[in-house]
């Protein structure tokens, strides 16, 4: 027998409790990892190839205020601008669903490719999109979710504009960080609602990264002191600004994570205390046989650490396996397209497990250290 065999046998002496302890740690750490990944995905959307050359232009008053379509000509003339397209949020519901599981934007069909070149779609798709007024292109995730294919019709009821619009799918794209969105033609929207002349936003592409700052400055300056002042910013900054509106969600997730960890510590400490209290007399016997405080402390610590490590391994490993090899889009019903369990998050969870193992061992170890052999032996009778 070795010391580790002794610790192992002690840890598993009450198998049901050991399994429950490991399970509680595993489930809690799985939850912690999930929350941390969700927080990361919400606050750090995956960078898109080409995003470093794209600029989002919105009404300076608010995102919901439209911009006059006449601004396009002025923007196109700014040096360094390669492509400009309207980008109008439609807010449509598909099949009378309660919420919107994918976004729809009206834009210039010709500028789709120059703007979002990283998207993969057939040449026929682009051509059809440019040719047919009611054409749209759809992200692969949404197409798969609703079993839609090229040529199918889609009817969307707008929550912003009166009435509904029917579209025909010209192409299905993939290869972007978020293959859920739908794009259709601005002119189709203008004609349908009967009030042309306004767009939601402008989305531009600059020629080189060096053009980014001057273009942003020039666009902002171009509409200063007009009836529709704009706020231009890089696509990345626009996304981060959007995310900053999730401030409360971040706090909520952080709070839940803290509660999870704190509860976990309480449960584990209680379990370890119970396990040690049941063995008080045995520990007194070990002391009588010559085991010192530090050796008994090491036994308790090793047992506690072992249970926490086993739980950690299961929880973290399980989260990694599920979120890496599972279909996150399906699992989250399209809310998250990627759900990356990063080494940093795994390290954080492992650290929590390690601290948990140590903290849980402290109280019982201290009580054992303070226990005299005689008092410990008295618990025998």
């Amino acid at each position: 027998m070795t010391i580790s065999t002794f610790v192992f046998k002690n840890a598993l002496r009450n198998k049901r409790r050991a399994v429950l302890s490991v399970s509680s740690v595993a489930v809690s750490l799985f939850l912690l990892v999930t929350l941390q990944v969700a927080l990361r995905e919400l606050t750090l959307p995956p960078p898109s190839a080409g995003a470093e050359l794209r600029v989002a232009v919105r009404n300076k008053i608010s995102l919901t205020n439209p911009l006059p379509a006449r601004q396009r000509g002025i923007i196109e003339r700014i040096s360094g601008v390669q492509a400009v397209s309207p980008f109008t949020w439609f807010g449509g519901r598909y099949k009378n669903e309660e919420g919107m599981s994918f976004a729809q934007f009206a834009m210039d069909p010709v500028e789709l490719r120059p703007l979002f070149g990283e998207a993969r779609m057939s040449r026929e798709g682009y051509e059809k999109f440019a040719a047919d007024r009611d054409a749209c292109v759809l992200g692969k995730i949404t197409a798969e979710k609703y079993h839609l294919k090229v040529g199918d019709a889609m009817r969307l009821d707008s929550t912003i504009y009166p009435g509904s619009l029917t579209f025909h799918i010209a192409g299905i794209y993939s290869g972007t960080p978020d293959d859920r969105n739908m794009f259709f033609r601005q002119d189709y929207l203008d004609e349908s609602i009967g009030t042309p002349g306004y767009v939601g936003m402008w989305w531009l592409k600059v020629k080189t990264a060096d053009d980014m700052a001057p273009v942003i400055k020039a666009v902002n300056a171009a509409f200063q002191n007009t009836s529709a002042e704009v706020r231009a910013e890089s696509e990345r900054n626009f996304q981060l600004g959007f995310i900053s509106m999730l401030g409360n969600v971040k706090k909520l997730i952080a709070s839940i994570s803290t509660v999870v960890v704190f509860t976990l510590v309480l449960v584990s400490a209680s379990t370890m205390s119970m396990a040690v209290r049941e063995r008080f007399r045995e520990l007194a016997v070990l002391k009588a046989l010559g085991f010192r405080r530090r050796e008994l402390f090491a036994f308790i610590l090793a047992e506690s650490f072992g249970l926490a490590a086993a739980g950690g391994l299961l929880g973290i490993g399980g989260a990694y396996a599920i979120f890496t090899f599972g279909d996150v889009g399906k699992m989250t019903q399209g809310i998250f397209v990627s759900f990356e369990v990063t080494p940093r998050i795994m390290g954080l969870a492992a650290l929590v497990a390690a601290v948990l193992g140590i903290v849980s061992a402290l109280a019982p170890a201290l009580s054992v250290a303070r226990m005299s052999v005689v008092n410990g032996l008295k618990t025998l009778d």
Partner: protein
Amino acid sequence: MSGAALLLKTISPFAQCRGFRGRMARRQIELFSSGPPSLLYFVAETIVQIRELTKIYAQGEIQVTALDRISLEIAAGEFLALMGPSGSGKSTLLHIIAGVDRPTSGECRVQGVNVTRLNESELADWRNHNVGFIFQTFNLIPVLTAAENVELPLLLTRLGRRERHRQVETALALVGLGDRAKHLPRQLSGGQEQRVAIARALVTDPALIVADEPTGNLDSHSAQEVLAVLQSLRSDAGKTVIMVTHDPKAAAFGTRQIHLEKGELSP
């Protein structure tokens, strides 16, 4: 070879050791080399020397005197039966001799070492090397086999696995349980469990075996077996055995009986 010379020969290799065991061996050699003849005699023949030992327990404002200025000498190789009614202080005396309790005043020397002066860590080390414990309720670890229970005290030594196994086998064979090494405590009878506990007490080859009511939880047949083993430890292995008991029949196995009454030795 005289007993003193034999002891000197035994402890000399340990004088090179670091830590408590080395210090204790060097102290004993010092006693042999420079002490007067009476001291030499004491080291060789008297294993326990107790002087004016008092133990007072404070229970709130009430003070209970468990041991009242007891003086006692126990010779090496004795089988001493400590008798007395409940609360007479016999277990307290046993605990102090075994180094698991401390007296309020007085001195307790075991093999020349004043155990009342050792700190916690030194005392633990000393117990591991010099005292074997046998308890009334056996106190075996239920998840360990008989052999693993016996091996426990050896985990604190520097012995290799093979040497540990050899010593465990010897100890179990000595108590007649060589064929039960793989059995868990629950698979053994009470008498067998107590014999495993005796093997555990023996395995480090301590000079002193202390037994607190070792037959208290056994039927008369098993009690006889256990007492016979303890007796043979004294007669065949030369161990000093100190046993606390209520039972006059068990006490009769001892070479000497001492009665305690209200914390004092009664004549």
